[in-house]
């Protein structure tokens, strides 16, 4: 083997080792979730000072006991249902509000629309951390404390700005000719929006649905501030808050809940990642 080929070979191995390193760092907690979910307690709760007991592998037969506990003796199924309800309601509000707004910014609004667009985008940067205290007050005044409706009302404040920005990009990609053709063909400006343009935004709207879904799954502060009853919680609040409390730490059930929630999210997110990045970077970079 020539020196050149040897160097290339070495570089190749280097690339793989580095890639494996990054992937290990990224994926390790998930491996740990999976392992914990299916380990028997006697395999799980062994002090790390016991160097003979290797925690990286199954030392006893895997078990479904933790998952059974999770689904039969905790509120986890209820949390899934609550999350789903909130997601559906928030998606509806977001789509109804953000899709027309995105079209308005992309096509109809003139120079003042540009400023509006940037304004809407900037509100996306105002985080829940800044607003949860006044919101706790507002929610109390509205009588929505400890109600899923509080989340339904508040979550669109961050889904609407982002999704407006996102669908705006999709609407911009619709050829002008088509819209004008439809106007000639007998449709009003509004008719064009419903009959021609909306069809092009379907992938965008799908992305909005997925994005809203992930955001609701991620959100923690508002849920923690507004919701106190265990049976009203969403998954992202219930799992860390209501499964840990008590005398026994149900790490097996807890990691099971994390795992079961994570898998579909990861798959969906992977499919839509490119669109999100586009939405964020193009939105921000290309204005």
């Amino acid at each position, binding site marked *: 083997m020539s020196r050149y080929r040897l160097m290339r070979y070495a570089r190749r191995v280097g690339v793989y080792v580095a890639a494996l390193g990054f992937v290990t760092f990224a994926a390790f907690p998930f491996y740990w979730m999976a392992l914990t979910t299916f380990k028997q307690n006697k395999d799980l709760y062994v002090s790390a000072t016991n160097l003979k007991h290797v925690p990286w592998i199954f030392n006893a037969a895997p078990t479904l006991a933790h998952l059974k506990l999770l689904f039969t003796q905790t509120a986890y199924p209820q949390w899934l249902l609550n999350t789903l309800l909130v997601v559906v309601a928030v998606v509806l509000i977001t789509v109804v509000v953000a899709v027309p707004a995105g079209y308005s910014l992309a096509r109809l609004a003139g120079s003042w629309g540009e400023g509006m667009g940037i304004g809407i985008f900037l509100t996306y940067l105002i985080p829940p951390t800044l607003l949860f205290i006044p919101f706790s007050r507002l929610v109390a005044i509205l009588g929505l404390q400890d109600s899923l409706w509080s989340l339904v009302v508040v979550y669109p404040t961050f889904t609407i700005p982002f999704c407006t920005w996102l669908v705006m990009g999709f609407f911009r990609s619709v*050829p002008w*000719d*088509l819209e*004008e*053709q*439809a*106007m*000639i*063909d*007998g*449709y*009003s*400006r509004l*008719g064009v929006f419903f*009959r*021609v343009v909306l*069809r*092009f935004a379907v992938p965008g709207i799908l992305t909005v649905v997925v994005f809203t879904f992930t955001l609701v799954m991620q959100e923690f502060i508002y849920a923690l501030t507004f919701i106190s009853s265990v049976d009203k919680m969403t998954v992202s609040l219930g799992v860390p808050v209501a499964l840990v409390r008590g005398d026994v730490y149900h790490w097996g059930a807890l990691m099971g809940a994390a795992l079961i929630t994570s898998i579909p999210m990861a798959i969906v997110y992977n499919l839509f990642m490119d669109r999100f990045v586009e939405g964020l970077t193009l939105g921000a970079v290309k204005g």
Partner: protein
Amino acid sequence: MAAVEIRDLHKHFEGHRAVDGVDLSVEDGEFVVLLGPSGCGKTTLLRTIAGLEEPTSGEIRLGGRVLSRDVPPRARKIAMMFQSYALYPHRTVFGNIAFPLKALHTPRDEIEEKVRWAVRMFDIERYLDRYPRHLSGGERQRVALCRAVVREPQAFLLDEPLSNLDAKQRTTARDELKRFQEDVGITTVYVTHDQVEAMGLGDRIAVMNAGKVHQFGTPAEVYEHPADIFVATFIGLPPMNLLESIEALAPAGMLVGFRPEHFLPRSAFGEDEDVTTFRYHVRRVEYLGSERYLYGSLDAHEDPEKPIIARLPAMLRLEVEADRTHEFAVHSGQLRYFDEESGQRRDPPGAARGRADA
């Protein structure tokens, strides 16, 4: 069907005068072509007729009805065909053609009937269930024509519809378009920058530049008797040769022009014909099969930037060598005179005398 009347139409974009005072009368059933270089305002004029642009001032009438700014495109009884054909990609051929009818809430069986009638006329019945992406350029044009015709428009507007086709398809598509227009007898306004298309299709041509109509006439009028220097040089390939201040031919301040195909060796004319002769130094000969282009200069007129071009048909077998000076001539009747200052065409200087002689 209806006539289109345009009166003193202006369309300004932030100070730029895209359409700058246009008057145009298109008669009922007439095929009018708006011809001009890109950016001359022809597309803006068309879009203003369609209602896609609001005019800054002026008036448009269609069949006597004033199309003011509160008449949206959908209420104008017009059809329009875009360069891209703008077929709806998510609809089948049937869906595309039926789309304008659905806007009118036409009953389902009537839609069916009209679409069938249209596709039969254009012989595309077998494509009804296909999507536009599965059609060739020519087939797309037919679908677009079907979609235009089912609305029974009073006028048909076309924006460079052939420019997306390749050269071969273009000839067939042009023929098809013209036959369709003659069959249906619909008033048509057609925008193009291609003079061959304009000459071939138009009953009349409006030659436009910088937002103004320079000449509005039949193809023969526009070609034979260009109204000004712009029309003379824009129409015709190669363009008209223009000579500055030749005392023998015209008084000072006048330009003399003649078309390359009228500029032939002296020996091609009869001895007693009324010709004007030039000493023509031929620099280069271009053999093009059906004809020859000669590039050169006149003794009286030397400008290497603007060669004088002669266009000899193939049947003219005379030998013409490069780098030689030859005796060339133009029929005196084919000379055109222009005012150097205004660019407008002028009567030949001898015309008054000629008339007197008669």
